[in-house]
């Protein structure tokens, strides 16, 4: 365990160094994601401007929600972007072989391999939104709800990671799963909106099957409407941990299959 803690900064620092060698490219990547989210939010902004509030959520609240949505997503994007390679034909290309012959956990090696600076575009925007819209709202920033929000955000990072890992690991069986991965990952877009605007069946999916709304929307709702933060944080923790355990289980199963049957 100590070895991993010692090794990880090595991987990270070298990966960042390598990426920064091409400054302009890194900038374009970061700018691209920042712009994309900026424009999508502008669309949302212009849409909602035409009405006073969306089911009780006004512009500033929607902005605050959007900002919160971006942050855990961004952090996961920065650290575990290599997982996409799993679904992108990586299994058949044998990218796992070089991990399997080293005395180090292969999942750790896969994740640590790359730091994706593009995610900073989302992160910067998310922080800006939280500050700008947060200041326009009258929020009771006290200890319990702030901590609750931070803790939920922390677990949300693992949730995003778990989703990528589950659907990436499907390619152990289906050879290529990037389309499914993208589809499910994009499902997270539902969480930018108050969950009650959707039909009952979609709400069910967003709460119990792919609980993106639990992990992103519920904490903000509790935070802004002064509901019980601790219960919500508990829900977030349970969903995220459950998803993570599931993802690790599927990954391990897939890896076993790979070792017995090859690619």
């Amino acid at each position, binding site marked *: 365990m100590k070895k991993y803690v010692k090794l990880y900064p090595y991987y990270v620092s070298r990966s960042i160094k390598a990426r920064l060698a091409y400054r302009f490219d890194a900038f374009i990547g970061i700018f691209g994601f920042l712009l994309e989210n900026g424009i999508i939010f502008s669309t949302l902004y212009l849409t909602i401007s*035409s009405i006073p509030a969306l089911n009780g959520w006004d512009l500033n609240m929607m902005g605050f929600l959007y900002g919160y949505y971006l942050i855990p997503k961004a952090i996961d994007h920065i650290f575990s972007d290599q997982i996409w390679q799993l679904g992108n034909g990586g299994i058949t290309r044998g990218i796992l072989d070089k991990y399997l012959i080293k005395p180090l956990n292969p999942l750790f090696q896969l994740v640590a391999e790359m730091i994706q600076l593009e995610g900073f575009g989302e992160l910067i925007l998310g922080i800006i939104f939280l500050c700008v819209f947060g200041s326009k709202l009258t929020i009771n920033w006290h200890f319990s709800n702030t901590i609750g929000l931070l803790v939920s955000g922390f677990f949300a990072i693992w949730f995003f990671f778990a989703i990528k890992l589950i659907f990436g690991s499907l390619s152990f069986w289906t050879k290529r799963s990037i389309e499914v991965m993208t589809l499910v990952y994009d499902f997270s877009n539902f969480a930018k909106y108050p969950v009650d605007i959707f039909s009952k069946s979609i709400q069910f999916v967003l709460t119990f099957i792919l609980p993106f709304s639990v992990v992103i929307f519920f904490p903000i709702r509790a935070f802004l409407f002064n509901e019980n933060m601790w219960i919500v944080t508990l829900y977030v923790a349970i969903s995220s941990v459950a998803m993570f355990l599931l993802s690790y289980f599927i990954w391990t199963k897939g890896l076993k299959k790979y070792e017995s049957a090859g690619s």
Partner: protein
Amino acid sequence: MKPKNIKKYMAFSKAGILSGFAYKFSAFGWLLGDAISLMILYFLWKAIYQNASSDVINGMTFEEMVSYLIYARIGTTLVFSTASFWIIGEDIYEGNIAISLIRPINYRYRLLATSFGNFLSALILMFVPLMSLSMLLFHFTLEIPIPGILNFGWFFASVILSFMIADSLNFLIGEMALFTNALFGLMIIKNITLSFFSGSLLPSSFFPNWLEITMKFLPFQSMIETPIMILMGKLEGYQLLSTFLMQFVWVFVLNAVCNLSFNAMKKRVVSVGG
């Protein structure tokens, strides 16, 4: 263009059609992703109109809004079927651009011809089935009238112009590959900017005033919003003709810009090396 050259260009178009068909599965995969965002938009707008004080927001009813957004998304499969960005981008990235300059065929038009092939395959594989499906769906569920033949006629004329505008813009942005290796990042910037300003995410009547006015002088609006509005019968008579004129003007202007910039690039490549 000489007649025998036209044959050469048609060969590229054929190649474009075939590759469009070959990538059909990947295209459908991405389409499913579109389905999700359309679903979100549907519910969002439903809620918006519920929370609004009137049935009409910025000149559109709920039914019109939903059909606009879905027609727009289907329209993008046609208008943005161009592959010019990737072709020129990869050629520059891999250093093939020098070879292409030696060939006795105009590079820009060759790309346009290939993209036209993509256009045709998108028309057959995606546009026709999806459009028919959604028009029938709207007719029976939301009671939206199916557009008339005349509207379709003008729509296709407009769409072809839009396609050419989109192709020129893709080409121009693809030339940026000279300055950076981050093609994927460039693509994201290009796609989101074009999506937004072409009106495929939101009709321009929702834009703030200053932006709406600026858009009138830019080619973007005419890429999606114009043809879709024509289809929905919202542009008629004088307005219809003037927007057509605008599109024509932009087609010529952008084409000229493409040729100018490409010639400048040629000079640079020839002197500095691929």
